[in-house]
């Protein structure tokens, strides 16, 4: 609030310059904090007034791009989405996301996460290439079918879940919550026919069954994606596939021609909203 006195908070920030430092160390900065200031604002204050060499990653400032994940007072959080006074009194530790290599200061190397993500074919897989490349109609999905995967689409690939996951802490090859959630998101999309393609990787020794439901991913996810839930549903489908008990499903058809945007007669009414 304008005119309101600022409170001093000590920021204990992890620093690491690969060209100079053998190991990361902690540097302390005192930041005047006002109500409503985010951790990202605090870092900007440090960069503008105290040490211009501090490095971190951010872009949107509004919890959308997923760039500013950090370890704040020991918890993986988004710096732009977290108000300093909500989590700190006089001291705040700011570190890079664990379970990722540090490139510099607060910048984690997210590339391994994206490689794992890519290995699970995180896109709609269909055989009708011609139709895909030159669309002649639209897919129809009922609200129920949409709700099967909608929650998992809100993922912003920030990596907080990967940083909180205790399994990833000891098994670097574990695919991790974000990629596995993405696999489940596409598997449960009625337009998709790629479940078989993802099965081998998702069911591999470092795949879904490495998760033992510590639930940390769902605790720290800033978008309510609930990766722990997605992974359990993924495991269920892998078990059903293994036992040949899964219901066979063909990717849904496209609708052609005018007037077909109307709801189809044989589609059930939408369910009551879940929230």
């Amino acid at each position, binding site marked *: 609030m304008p005119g309101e006195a600022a409170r001093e908070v000590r920021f204990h920030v992890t620093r690491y310059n690969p060209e100079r430092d053998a190991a990361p160390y902690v540097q302390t900065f005192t930041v005047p904090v006002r109500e409503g200031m985010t951790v990202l604002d605090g870092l900007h204050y440090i960069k503008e007034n105290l040490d211009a060499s501090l490095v971190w990653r951010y872009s949107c400032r509004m919890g959308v791009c997923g760039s500013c994940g950090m370890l704040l007072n020991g918890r993986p959080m988004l710096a732009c989405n977290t108000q300093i006074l909500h989590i700190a009194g006089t001291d705040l530790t700011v570190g890079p996301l664990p379970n990722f290599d540090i490139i510099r200061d607060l910048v984690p190397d997210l590339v391994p996460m994206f490689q794992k993500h890519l290995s699970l074919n995180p896109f709609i897989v269909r055989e009708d290439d011609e139709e895909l490349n030159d669309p002649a109609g639209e897919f129809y999905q009922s609200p129920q079918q949409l709700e099967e995967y909608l929650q998992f689409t809100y993922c912003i690939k920030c990596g907080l879940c990967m940083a909180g996951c205790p399994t990833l802490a000891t098994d670097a090859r574990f695919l991790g919550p974000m990629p596995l959630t993405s696999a489940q998101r596409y598997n449960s999309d009625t337009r998709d026919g790629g479940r078989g393609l993802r099965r081998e990787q998702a069911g591999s020794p470092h795949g879904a069954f490495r998760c033992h439901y510590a*639930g940390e991913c769902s605790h720290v996810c800033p978008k309510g994606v609930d990766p722990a839930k997605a992974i359990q549903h993924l495991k269920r489908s892998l078990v059903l596939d293994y036992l040949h008990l899964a219901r066979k499903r063909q990717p849904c058809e496209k609708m052609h021609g005018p007037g077909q945007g109307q709801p189809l007669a044989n589609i059930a009414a939408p369910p009551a909203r879940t929230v």
Partner: protein
Amino acid sequence: MAEIKRHDNRLGLWGWLGGGRWGLERYAYILHRVTGLGILLYFLIHIFVTNLRFRGIYLWVEGSFFDKPIFKVGEYLVFVAFAYHALNGIRLVLVELGVAVGKPIEPVYPYKTSLTVQRPLLIVMMLLAAIVVAAGGYEFLGLTR
């Protein structure tokens, strides 16, 4: 392009144990791993010790090495670990089959997660484990004799 030097920031075992201020399920996870490793260790020692009988060494008979109260307590701890690991394991099997985690929902703040949906199952399993542990304690203390 020159390779950029990076610092490995993997948490290792601290990632399991350094879980202060986390959710209940994380503690259940740590305990599940620790009890699993404990039971495995006991199993290896058990195989080794019983194997010694081939050489005519009986470490567990009255008056020999293992006939001490401390090992009795140790045995009870193995039983406690087993009771926890088995009952928590049943919860995990159910959860991993998609039971008790709920369906996907629309995420609206404040977010609800599957953890709260399965929490009653966790509580029931822990109560059952407590009953088994208490019944086992009764037996180990020799109260049934």
